[in-house]
């Protein structure tokens, strides 16, 4: 793989088709869906797959057997439309990062080279909390889905990512720095997707700290020593 990490085509760890399909169908819980959104911002290949799966949804919609609507449903909707201000449909979700200052709190400090993904800007991100030597975390609250359990991890060079229980989908997107596990090296833009079938031991590479966005599906995050430290800050 090319070492030019700034180029999107250099992304070497992607999200599986099964998870992208769940994302496209709207079946992924908010936390993992946020990680997928962040990954998609930098990954044209996964974006193309999601677009294809959405087209499948469009085909299924077009083929769906029509259900009878209430007799006055169209008339009621046209009346609501009449109540709308004339024309000028505002581009509701164009460039949310610039036009919607949704953060009530300032983002925690990030290294200068970290470009905060716009999906993350739409969230409320807590301050960095010290979790142990070389380890900090920050809670990410997704609008409309409080306690959905996405967190940012900031781990020092050479340290392991905190041990956690698998049992469901876990997504870890690298925002800054890099880590390695049995599957290879993960750099900014890469995502690690694991589940109960995967046993891996990610370790931050020696040349600098690593910032990741992490989300798990299911009710369990870090356990053991780290669990006692982290759980108070993550609601499940």
């Amino acid at each position, binding site marked *: 793989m090319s070492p030019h990490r700034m180029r999107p085509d250099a992304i070497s760890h992607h999200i599986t*088709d*099964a998870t992208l*399909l*769940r*994302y*496209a*169908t*709207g*079946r992924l819980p*908010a936390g993992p*869906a*946020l990680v997928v*959104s962040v990954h*998609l*911002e930098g990954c*044209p290949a996964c*974006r193309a*797959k*999601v*677009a*294809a799966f*959405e*087209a*499948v*949804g*469009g*085909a*299924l*919609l*077009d083929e*769906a*057997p*029509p*259900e*009878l*609507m209430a007799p006055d*449903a*169209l008339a*009621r*909707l*046209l009346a*609501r*439309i009449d109540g*709308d201000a*004339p024309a000028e*449909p505002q*581009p*509701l*979700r*164009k*460039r*949310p990062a610039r036009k919607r200052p949704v953060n009530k709190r300032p983002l925690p400090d990030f290294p200068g080279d970290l470009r905060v993904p*716009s*999906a993350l800007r*739409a*969230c409320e991100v807590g301050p960095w909390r010290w979790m142990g030597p070389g380890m900090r975390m920050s809670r990410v609250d*997704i*609008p*409309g*889905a409080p306690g959905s359990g996405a967190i940012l991890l900031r781990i020092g060079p050479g340290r392991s990512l905190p041990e956690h229980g698998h049992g469901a989908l876990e997504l870890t997107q690298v925002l800054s720095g890099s880590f390695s596990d049995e599957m290879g090296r993960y750099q900014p833009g890469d995502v690690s997707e694991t589940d109960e079938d995967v046993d891996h031991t990610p370790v931050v590479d020696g040349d600098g700290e690593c910032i990741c966005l992490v989300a798990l599906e299911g009710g369990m995050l870090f356990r053991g020593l780290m669990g006692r430290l982290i759980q108070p800050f993550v609601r499940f």
Partner: protein
Amino acid sequence: MIRTRARRVSGSMNAAETFPLRGRPALCLVAPAGKAVTSVAPDETVPSAPALARFILVIAAQQDRQAFTWLYRHYAPRLKSFFLRSGLAPNVAEELAQETMLQVWRKAALFDPQKAGAGTWIFTIARNLRIDFLRREKIPSVPDDDLPDEPDGAPNSEAVLLTAEREARVRGALQSLSTEQAAIVHLSFFGEKPHVEIARELGIPLGTVKSRVRLALARLRALLDGEA
């Protein structure tokens, strides 16, 4: 009647004609003033994909209620069906179908035929509304579209055609899946807990479902990639 109009449009698949610039609406798709559209039953006719896309462009260009009515007659009953099959109660399904169509009206200017066909675009609106409903807050979903694939530019008729081809290819791919693979794809869209539900509905052990889902998706992807 709609069908003949739609055929005429798709018959002359000149992109510039089929998808004119906004502000130059395709009047051939809009009924003459005073035409009694109510005489057209919801599913007597099924507009073609380009015709449906065109309705949205006309809505965007001139807030055309006639085009909206046609679009509504096609999609509202199908949206209700879609929501019902995904497990929502009938009154909720109808309400979300209404909300989806309202968003279609309000966001018509955001519809980009270079990116998606009408059904796909409306599907994503419906999906996001369902997510919002399930989250019990009317807050926009995490941004997942409007990402620039390329620098913005003038409408690219070639891109529109490529998108139309992809949509057609998807439909073809769906039809060439095996019965079980098609069922897996359907259940992925309509089942609340895909793997568990698929296992139950297909009567296969949960343990084998994941590999079958992988296979079904691999096949679907292979079919979709056929062009590349």
